[in-house]
C-alpha cells in the first residue's frame, strides 16, 4: 500500500529530524540560561587576542556572579558600539578617542586601568636598517625613505590611531607619501601580523598581542623602548542618560573591580612564558 509506505517514510524522516534536534539540545547546554546576570563589554582585539580576558573574567565572575560578554573590535568600532547603546562598558586604548566619547556625554567618567607598550615589528632581513634602535620616529622615517613595506591596521583602532600619530610626529604626510610600500589592510592586530609576516613588512603592534602571537615566522621586534610607544588602556561605563537600558550597576561593578587592588593584581598576574603583558596603573594620576 502506497499510503503505508508514505507513513513509514514520514515516520522515518521525523525520527531523523527528532534525532538531530535531540542531539543538538543535549550537546548545547545553553551557555547562558535565561535570567543569567551578564553585561556586554565592547573592547579591543588586543585584550582578546592576547588572552587577557580569558584570564581575568572568570575571576570577576567568581567574585560577583556577573558574566561578562566581550565583543572585540578595534577601539573606534568598540566606541561606536557603545554609542549605539549595544554595550554596557567600553574598555579600549586610545585616550583622545575616549575623551571625545566622554565629551559627547556617552560616559560620565573614564578610569585608567593598565598600560603596555607598542613595538615595531619587522622582518629579520631588516630592509630599512632599523633593528635594535630605540627611536621610533627615526625608524618610521627610514622605512618611508627606503620604501620598505609597512602594514597599517587601517581600522581606526587604538593601534591605528597611535600609528597615525607617530607618522605625524615624524613629519611624514601619509596622504602625499604613501605608495605601494604602505599597505592599509583594515583588519585586526593578529591579521596585520599575519599579513606582515607574509610579505616581510614592518608593522606596529601592541606588545601583548605580539607576545601571545603564534605565527611569527621571520618577524622580530625591530624597535622598542621609545617613550612615545606608551599604550594606555581606559575603561568607561556607558551613561544611562544616553541609553536608559544599560546595566548601570553591574557595569559599574566591573569598572570598580578592574581598578580595585584585586582586579589590578589579576591583570598583573597574567603572563605568557613568564612575560607580563599588561601593567596595572589605575592609581596613576592623569594616565
Amino acid at each position: 500500500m502506497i499510503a503505508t509506505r508514505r507513513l513509514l517514510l514520514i515516520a522515518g524522516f521525523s525520527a531523523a529530524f527528532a534525532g538531530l534536534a535531540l542531539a543538538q539540545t543535549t550537546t548545547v547546554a545553553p551557555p547562558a540560561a535565561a535570567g543569567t546576570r551578564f553585561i556586554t563589554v565592547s573592547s579591543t582585539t588586543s585584550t582578546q587576542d592576547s588572552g587577557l580576558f580569558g584570564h581575568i573574567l572568570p575571576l570577576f565572575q567568581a567574585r560577583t556572579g556577573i558574566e561578562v560578554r566581550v565583543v572585540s573590535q578595534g577601539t573606534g568600532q568598540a566606541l561606536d558600539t557603545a554609542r549605539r547603546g549595544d554595550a554596557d562598558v567600553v574598555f579600549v586604548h586610545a585616550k583622545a578617542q575616549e575623551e571625545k566619547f566622554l565629551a559627547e556625554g556617552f560616559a560620565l567618567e573614564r578610569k585608567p586601568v593598565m598600560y603596555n607598550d607598542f613595538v615595531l615589528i619587522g622582518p629579520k632581513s631588516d630592509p630599512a636598517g632599523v633593528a635594535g634602535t630605540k627611536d621610533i620616529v627615526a625608524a618610521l622615517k627610514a622605512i618611508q625613505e627606503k620604501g620598505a613595506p609597512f602594514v597599517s591596521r587601517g581600522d581606526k583602532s587604538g593601534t591605528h590611531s597611535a600609528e597615525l600619530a607617530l607618522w605625524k610626529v615624524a613629519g611624514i604626510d601619509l596622504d602625499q607619501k604613501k605608495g605601494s610600500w604602505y599597505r592599509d589592510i583594515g583588519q585586526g592586530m593578529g591579521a596585520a601580523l599575519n599579513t606582515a609576516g607574509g610579505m616581510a613588512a614592518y608593522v606596529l603592534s601592541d606588545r601583548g598581542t605580539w607576545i601571545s602571537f603564534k605565527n611569527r615566522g621571520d618577524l622580530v621586534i625591530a624597535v622598542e623602548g621609545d617613550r612615545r610607544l606608551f599604550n594606555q588602556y581606559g575603561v568607561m561605563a556607558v551613561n544611562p542618560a544616553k541609553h536608559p537600558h544599560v546595566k548601570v550597576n553591574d557595569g559599574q561593578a566591573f569598572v570598580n573591580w578592574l581598578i580595585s587592588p584585586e582586579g589590578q593584581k589579576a591583570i598583573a598576574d597574567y603572563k605568557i612564558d613568564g612575560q607580563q603583558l599588561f601593567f596595572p596603573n589605575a592609581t596613576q594620576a592623569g594616565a
Partner: protein
Amino acid sequence: MDFAAIFKAAFALVVGLDPGFLAIVGLSLRVTLTAVLIAGLIGLPLGAALALARFPGRSVVIVCLNALMGLPPVVAGLFVFLLLSRSGPLGPLGLLFTPTAMIAAQVILVLPIVIALTRQTVEDLWSEYRDHLRSVGLEGMRAIPTLLFDGRFALATALLAGFGRASAEVGAVLIVGGNIAGYTRTMTTTITLETSKGDLPLALGLGLVLIALTLAINAVAFGASRIGARYAG
C-alpha cells in the same frame, strides 16, 4: 606550515571532547539547523506557491529571488545588525549579540535558496503532472502538498544547499553575534579568531572538523533519501 600539526590539532579537538569546543560545535549546529528549519517552513510553501501562481511582475520576483542567492553574508549581517542595534527599529528587543540574531541573519541567507530551488522544482513537476493532478481534482494551491511531497528528494537537496551556505559563512554571524566566548562563538568565528591569533594549525584543525561535520550531515541526508526512495518506490 606543518601539515602534521593541523591533523594533530583536529584530532586533539575531536578526541579531547573539550566542553568549550563541544559548546562551540553545538551552537554552530543549533544556529544553522534552526535557520534551515525556519527557512524550510517558510520557503517550501512560498516557493511552491510562486511556482503555481500567475501574477503581473512574477518574472521580476523570480529574478530577484535568484539574485538574492548571491547576497553577500556580510550584507545580510549588517542589515540585521542595524535592525537589532539598540539604536535601530527593533533595538528594544535587546537581541543584538545573541544566538537569535545569528539565526535571523542566517534565515535571510538561506531563504532565497530554498524559495528559488523549490520554485524551480515544483514548476517542473507541475508541467509534468498537470493533467494527472487536474484529473484527480487537484488544482491551484491545493496541489501544493502533493507537489512538495513528490519533489521531496530535490527539495531535500535545496535544504542541504541552504545548510551549506549557512554553516560555512562567517561574515553575518560575526557581525550580529559578536563572537562572544561561550555565548555566540561558532566554529567559523573561532576559525577567524584563531587565525588572527596566529594559531594556524588550530584554525585549520577546526576547519577539518567543520568539513567532517558537514560531510556527516550530508551522508545522513543521503542515506535517509535512499531508504525513503526504496520504501516509497
